[in-house]
């Protein structure tokens, strides 16, 4: 990338059920946090924040332009304020594109979600095509289950290997003060838990309902260097769509992730992801996804996701710690996972990740996913 975009401040709320809080208050807390860190406000003359990008599904907040009634909370009065109806990583992608386009120099990226106010499965399933897949009662959970079954069967992934992903996630979450679920859990506990949607068990799916918000401030290179001593540079970013109908693709593959990852790596000059990255935050909504997305990201060979988790390379202290924050399996609300990945990677590269810090982290990999069985992926690479 010819010009660089830097992350100058990040913030997140504690992820938990907050039924008594108005959704605008979540947005206010987190946006105020980043704005206080940088001392920036929305300004007309290019000396403050120029625009804001939000992520979130409209129907999650209430029908008909719900976000439109909250833009004022961040101070976007008569300002550029646009919303990406995808996972939060794509809002970061778009915010960075605005800066590369020269259209804005400083962008506030926000994501906020209240799963306690709505049954998110109902909203997610409206993303499925109405003629065939919705009519058989398919939703994102069942689509993931189909993919988990195909992936495990084709590659001989055992239930124990899948359970290890959850154990690792919850163990890592203990070091993360923002995480929702950080209970001590063993492989046996995971395998004993109730079956949610065969073969996915309740403990293997992301906990829900959870409420929370994240925010980041992105800036052009010159401004980033002035705004913070520790800018985190976005070196590569890309998204890619896959087929929609589940029968159209082999669910044991994640071709769109491979494409998105290879484009991002090319932009960033990465050839050996497992060796070159120091930390990775992958959006795994269900346990099998950590293994499958690791393959797509090139962290291991095709079909070797099970061997990867067994090898311990992705544990804290391993060659490439994956999800030191506990990841989505520790409870991240709808549409926030990808943005949370970027926030956590930025904290790692700034050396501000507290007990979950990977020492001396220089390059990080963030990932977001949306759509049934990982139809749309977004990969963002960062370095300090």
């Amino acid at each position, binding site marked *: 990338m*010819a*010009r660089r975009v830097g992350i100058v401040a990040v913030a997140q709320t504690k992820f938990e059920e907050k039924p008594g809080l108005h959704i605008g208050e979540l947005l206010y807390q987190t946006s105020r946090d980043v704005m206080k860190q940088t001392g920036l406000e929305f300004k007309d003359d290019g000396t403050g924040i120029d625009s804001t990008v939000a992520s979130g*599904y*409209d*129907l999650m907040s*209430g*029908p*008909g*332009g*719900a976000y*439109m*009634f909250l*833009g*004022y909370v*961040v101070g*976007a*009065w*008569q*300002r*550029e*304020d*646009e*919303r*990406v*109806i*995808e996972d939060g990583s*794509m809002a970061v*992608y*778009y915010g960075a*594109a*605005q800066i*590369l*386009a*020269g*259209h804005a120099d400083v962008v506030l990226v926000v994501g906020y979600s209240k799963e306690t106010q709505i049954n998110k499965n109902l*909203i997610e399933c*409206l*993303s*499925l*095509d*109405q003629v065939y*897949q919705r009519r058989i009662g398919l939703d994102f959970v069942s689509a993931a289950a189909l993919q988990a079954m195909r992936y495990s069967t084709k590659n001989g992934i055992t239930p124990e290997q899948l359970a290890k992903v959850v154990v690792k996630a919850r163990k890592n979450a203990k070091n993360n003060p923002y995480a929702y679920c950080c209970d001590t859990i063993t492989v046996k506990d995971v395998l004993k838990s109730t079956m949610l949607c065969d073969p996915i068990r309740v403990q293997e799916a992301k906990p829900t309902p959870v409420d929370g918000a994240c925010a980041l401030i992105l800036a052009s290179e010159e401004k980033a260097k002035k705004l913070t001593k520790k800018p985190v540079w976005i070196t590569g970013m*890309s*998204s*890619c*769509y*896959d*087929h*929609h*109908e589940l029968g*159209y693709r082999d669910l044991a593959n994640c*071709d*769109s992730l491979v*494409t*998105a990852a290879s*484009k991002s790596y090319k932009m960033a000059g990465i050839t050996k992801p497992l060796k070159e990255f120091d930390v990775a935050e992958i959006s795994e909504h269900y346990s099998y996804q950590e293994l499958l997305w690791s393959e797509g990201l090139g962290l291991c060979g095709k079909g070797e996701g099970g061997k990867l988790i067994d090898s311990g390379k992705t544990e804290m202290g391993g060659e490439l710690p994956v999800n030191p924050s506990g990841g989505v399996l520790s409870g991240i609300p709808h549409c926030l996972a990808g943005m949370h990945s970027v926030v956590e990677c930025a904290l790692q590269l700034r050396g501000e990740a507290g007990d979950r810090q990977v020492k001396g982290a220089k390059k990080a990999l963030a990932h977001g996913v*949306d*759509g*049934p069985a990982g139809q*749309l992926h977004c990969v963002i690479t960062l370095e300090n």
Partner: protein
Amino acid sequence: MTGERIAIVGVGQTIHKSKRTDVNTAEMCAEAVEAALADAQLTIKDIDCVILGSFEPADGYSGPDKFIIPEIGCVGKAGFEMQNVGTTGGVVCATGFNMAAAGLFENVLCVAWQKMDEAAGAFGRGGGGANEYWTGQFPMSPITNFARRTYAYMTRSGCTEEHLAMVRVKQDQCAQRNKYAQLKLGLTVEKVMNDFLLAWPIRRLHMCPTTAGSAAIIVCPEKRAKKVTKKPVWVEDWFTCHQGGALTMAEDPTASTLAYACQKIYKRCGITNPNKQIQAWEVYEPASTAELRWMEEVGICEDYTAWKLFEQGKVGIEKEVPFNPSGGVTATNPIGCTPVVRVVEAALQVRGDAEEHQIPGTINRALATAYGGQGENVVFLLKKSL
């Protein structure tokens, strides 16, 4: 601006109708995409990024990009979906412009659609967008919003219902010359003034219809644009100006960010005399009466005097003020897609390709806008040559 300069190399839209029961949503988008590709003489293989959008709740969808992408041939391409109620199409175009200007892609496809024959608009609460707790308890909708706006305009300007009817007749005359427009009714001032009253002073004919339609544009950075087409339409500037729910209709029935947004891009682009420097206007007016106020906000005339221009017969395709030569939104309104239709029409005017509703003379600059919510706008300035 430090990014790439960009141009629109191809535009396409469907023939807008009130019902398209002959196609499903994805097919309708595919029609617009194919039209845009044919216009640019490109194939879908050339496209490397696709930005989509639609006012989903009005159709009863959420995240429909997932199943529309494969139908328009965009599997394996980068992109995502945008939404912002009424200004959705505007945000889709702005996003596409940003992605192209960022130098990340060579051919960006922006597509928006709306298929309003599929849901009774209940999800969108009549499309007015509302704060569920408060104003959502009332049967508010764009009809009532514009009833209030027009009432405020009439009391401040002294114009009469007859002037409002003149605006509607002008739009109909323009729409009759646009093969893509939906409503072509052969209206007279008398017919409009005697039409069914929805909420005074808005009559049924004043409001935009429900439409099923789709539109697409293809945007390229400078070097690529010059290779693809001999008539690129340069995108000089764009600005999204949302007020984010700051004001309800009760607090300010004239709330609108259009004047502010136009002043901002005029300043950035050196426009000091809009009437002379801009030759084509495609401004989003959800009710025909809104044209009066928008003409003033974009700088064509002094505040609260636009109705005099209609009285003097100065507004029309071949007249002094060629405002909404396509017939505007009152003739065609697939909500999420309408701003893209405005950009398409503005681009056609700049190229001289608008056929029967082409404004005569050289069109050096065209202004296109998007409107949504309670006075939110996105404005675009298109240019013939760099």
